């Protein structure tokens, strides 16, 4: 996997994060994080478990309210009530977040069905198209999420995120619990989405291969602080001891 050299005309949204702070009880999780995500780029936020990556992602989509600071998506506050009606944002949760009471087709078409954006025949056509994009057989459309493997569920979640051509897509640990081959497929899907639609993609992961394979830029978060930010080459060359330790960590049986 390699990040594309040139981007299509970006329809993606820029994101500005300023002094973002969040604590749960006495435990600070984000300690004044500030940086920008450019429109149309694949930005990977990397870091060890418990560094605050997923909490950061939940702030981006408005599922958490910050204790301090702000996030602006396309110039609008992420916490504003009508951000969902102004822009189309999508997230692929770590667990997939598929509705188990709905079939795969109903899950993928949910955004269009509930907002009555298209007639049912058109929705069926879009669902088939999106399933094909993530290399899923049309036969899975009638199945329920609990009948699918973990990798298939993740791909269905990506297909659902693609519906309605989102301008900002967030991925929370997209390759966790997946074997390397499926992880590779998921990485390719993220790149394909970014290349095809120009959507801004924010990927939170501690999978180093995925991060270096797809990112335009990488941020390294540790204990609620952004310690390094740069292109994959800059990250590799960074002398930051924590980052180097993270990148060099490999299992060597004695």
């Amino acid at each position, binding site marked *: 996997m390699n990040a594309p050299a040139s981007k299509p005309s970006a329809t993606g949204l820029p994101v500005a994060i300023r002094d973002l702070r969040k604590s749960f009880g006495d435990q600070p999780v984000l300690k004044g994080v500030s940086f920008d995500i450019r429109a149309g780029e694949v930005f990977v936020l990397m870091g060890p478990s418990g560094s605050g990556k997923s909490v950061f992602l*939940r702030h981006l*989509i*408005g*599922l958490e309210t910050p204790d301090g600071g702000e996030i602006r998506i396309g110039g609008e506050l992420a916490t504003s009530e009508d951000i*969902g*009606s102004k822009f189309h*944002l*999508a*997230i692929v*949760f*770590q*667990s997939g*977040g*598929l*509705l*188990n*009471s709905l079939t795969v087709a109903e899950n993928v078409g*949910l*955004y269009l069905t*509930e*907002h009555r954006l298209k007639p049912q025949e058109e929705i069926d056509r879009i669902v088939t198209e999106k399933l094909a994009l993530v290399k899923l057989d049309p036969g899975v459309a009638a199945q329920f999420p609990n009948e699918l493997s973990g990798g298939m569920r993740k791909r269905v979640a990506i297909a*659902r995120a693609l519906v309605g051509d989102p301008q900002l897509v967030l991925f929370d640990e997209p390759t966790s619990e997946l074997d390397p081959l499926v992880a590779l497929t998921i990485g390719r899907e993220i790149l394909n989405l970014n290349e095809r639609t120009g959507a801004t993609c924010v990927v939170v992961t501690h999978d180093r291969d995925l991060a270096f394979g797809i990112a335009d830029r990488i941020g390294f978060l540790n204990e609620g602080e952004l310690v390094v930010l740069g292109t994959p080459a800059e990250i590799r060359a960074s002398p930051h001891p924590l980052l180097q330790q993270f990148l060099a960590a490999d299992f060597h049986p004695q």
Partner: protein
Amino acid sequence: MFQNLGEMLLLLAATLRAIPRAWRDRRKVADQLFDIGNASLFMACMLSLFIGGVLALQTGPVLVQRGLGSSLGGLVALGMCKELAPVMMAVLIAGRIGSAMAAELGSMRVYQEIDALRTLNIDPVNYLVMPRVLAIAIALPCLVVFANLVGWTGGALVASFNDRISVTWSAFFGNLRSVVEFTDLINGLIKSFFFAVVIGVVSCHQGLTTLGGPRGIGRSVTKAVVNSLVLILLLDYVLTRLLLPLDNGWHF
């Protein structure tokens, strides 16, 4: 429980605001109604049959001893339609449907399905809560009508077959017709409607505020049932007191 009362009232207000969507979401409401009926109709039948029977068995011999056996039909019927049917059906629905709703919404919350809905700009109150509350509010009064009929039949069966009572079927229902007024039935239906709203809102609230994993879901289910039962019994007194003026109403 009482610290959540404000949140529950806000959820109720949001649910009421979502009611105009009921027609477009009629399939979801119908699915819920089917689930409620499917899960509770047989239990409601058994429960009502025996409640009516026990009521006749407890009061029948005493009334017969005092020469008041002919009043048994009215007593059983009034007891059923004004108090026992609405309260016992509400208890049944809280235990069988309210717990299932809290568990379903709780697991949806824990497994990020609710978050997924929000990110798709779909309001969980419109999508999940309104159809459930509306379905319970329709189903419970219907179950109460059904429970009345079955309970009266249970009472009449015990009254006619028990040697210590021996009130005939026709005497039982003759007295029932002369005593029970239409407003007595309405009284029970009004109560059951409010009980249904309480069960729906409390159960959905507990489900939507579930924290943690499977243990959190278990805690939500327990709280949904216990809080519903406490509120039903409190509300029962308040409603009974408020509905007293209805007692001088229309006869059958």
